[in-house]
């Protein structure tokens, strides 16, 4: 096991950031922590990278205890904090060189690891990091976190604020790194990225809601889900919200995801209700719950 966390809790002055969190990450696994801003992801990352000490509970990374063996851990993990953390006034190459050296290695030694990523930013190697676009900064930060060939890689919200194209490229890179045997713990607020992990944990308000593979986690969705569509989205949402049997209503793309309180839901009845509210082109179909639906159902 490359990461094991058991019963970790952490509080700040009056906020409990983590409540009795337990999970483990297998060797070579790509594990996703999925949850919104303020869910406790960053605190968990800092505890695992030895930057914070938990109030209670135990955690191991690469076989080392996060408190007692913090020096060993610091030698064998790569960490990309949430905030953009490179030196803006140093060039791409200077940044990489610096991080390589402080981790006791050189660019040359582990070039094979970062080659795929680095070739994309190499044309700009003499540009200051502050002048790079968001996607490129991300790639550089990943190179810097990888340059010392870590056994475990911690990526705290690496794709926040990055456009979908760069995000996709970034995840392709993570997949390739995983094949090289590096275990990866990554956090993200984007539910679509969750599908790309081996296993995911939903985290909200410092608590783990569920852990499973992306394929199986949707099975935890408690109800039958329906796609409801109509010509006026606003009216549709308002009407559904006032429907007496409504259990949940969430806009989802061009449809509304709807669950009903009853077990014997009747779509014709709903159709009639919506028509009486003045809506046209009404459609009601059974839908497959997505990871996001599951998260919302569990987070409620």
């Amino acid at each position, binding site marked *: 096991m490359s990461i094991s966390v058991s019963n970790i809790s952490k509080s700040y002055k009056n906020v409990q950031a983590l409540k009795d969190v337990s999970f483990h990450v297998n060797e070579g696994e790509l594990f996703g922590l999925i949850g*919104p801003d*303020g869910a406790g992801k960053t605190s968990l990352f800092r505890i695992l990278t030895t930057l914070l000490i938990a109030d209670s509970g135990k955690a191991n990374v690469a076989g080392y205890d996060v408190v007692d063996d913090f020096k060993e851990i610091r030698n064998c993990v790569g960490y990309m904090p949430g905030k953009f953390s490179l030196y803006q006034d140093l060039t791409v190459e200077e940044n990489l060189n610096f991080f390589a050296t402080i981790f006791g290695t050189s660019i040359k030694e582990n070039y094979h690891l970062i080659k795929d990523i680095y070739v994309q930013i190499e044309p700009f190697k003499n540009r200051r990091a502050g002048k790079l*676009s968001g996607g490129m900064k991300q790639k550089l930060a990943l190179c810097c976190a990888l340059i010392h060939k870590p056994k475990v890689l911690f990526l705290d919200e690496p794709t*926040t*604020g990055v456009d979908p*194209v*760069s995000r*996709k490229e970034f995840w392709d890179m993570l997949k390739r790194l995983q094949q090289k045997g590096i275990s990866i713990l990554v956090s993200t607020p984007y539910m679509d990225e969750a599908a790309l992990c081996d296993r995911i944990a939903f985290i909200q308000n410092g608590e783990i809601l569920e852990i499973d593979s992306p394929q199986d986690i949707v099975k935890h969705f408690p109800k039958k889900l329906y796609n409801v569509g109509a010509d006026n989205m606003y*009216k549709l949402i308002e009407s559904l919200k006032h429907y007496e049997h409504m259990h949940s209503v969430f806009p989802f793309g*061009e449809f509304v995801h709807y669950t009903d309180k009853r077990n014997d839901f009747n779509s014709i009845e709903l159709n009639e209700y919506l028509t009486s509210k003045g809506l046209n082109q009404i459609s009601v179909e059974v839908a497959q719950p997505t990871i996001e639906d599951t998260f919302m159902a569990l987070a409620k």
Partner: protein
Amino acid sequence: MEKVIEAKSLTKSFGDFTAVNAITFHVEKGEIFGFLGANGAGKTTAMKMLIGISNPTSGEAKVAGFDVFKQRESIKNNIGYMSQKFALYDDLTVKENITFFGGIYGLSREVIKSKTQVLIKELNLEEVENQLVGSLPLGWKQKISFSVALLHNPKIVFLDEPTGGVDPITRRQFWEMIYKAANQGTTIFVTTHYMDEAEYCDRVSIMVNGKIEALDTPKNLKNSYKADSMNDVFLKLARG
């Protein structure tokens, strides 16, 4: 339909670099207009020109009926703006923030007072109205911030990545607020990196390298690019 934003060949250059390259489009009253693009495609620059804080290099544009070159002050009085980076003052309470932002738009004390009450009730903020904004969760802040941008009944509200990092439930509540405002006739101009949110828009434009490469309803875009989702449309376009 009334056009509240009209841009013709709007261009902005920095030296040899053309950040926004002759974009032409219009936005209709009450529309939810999604303004998408990769990082660095020129979205922010274009938005800055439209809200009157950056001078276009060439072209023309009217926002709420006012010229972006000559009537910038009138534009500012008729729009609301909310950005992800700056929304509210963390060290003021919810009430103080609302009062302050109402004040800078010249609302009278009575109007601010009554609007504050309505707003606090609508957002269920009764218990936290005297708490510092900094202590609230991000999603709440963004919702308050959107309401504050609507305080002075602007014709158009510009939202720059309003939901980044917000949890999925709050994100949807936020969009319900957007629908409501649009339904009442306010035009919404919004940028986002969440492609599912692009589907909520009436029309969507996608910027690539300073140009608008596609502009249509999400449905038509998906049809013409033979894609299942807006995410696929975006990937097909932006990858070039």
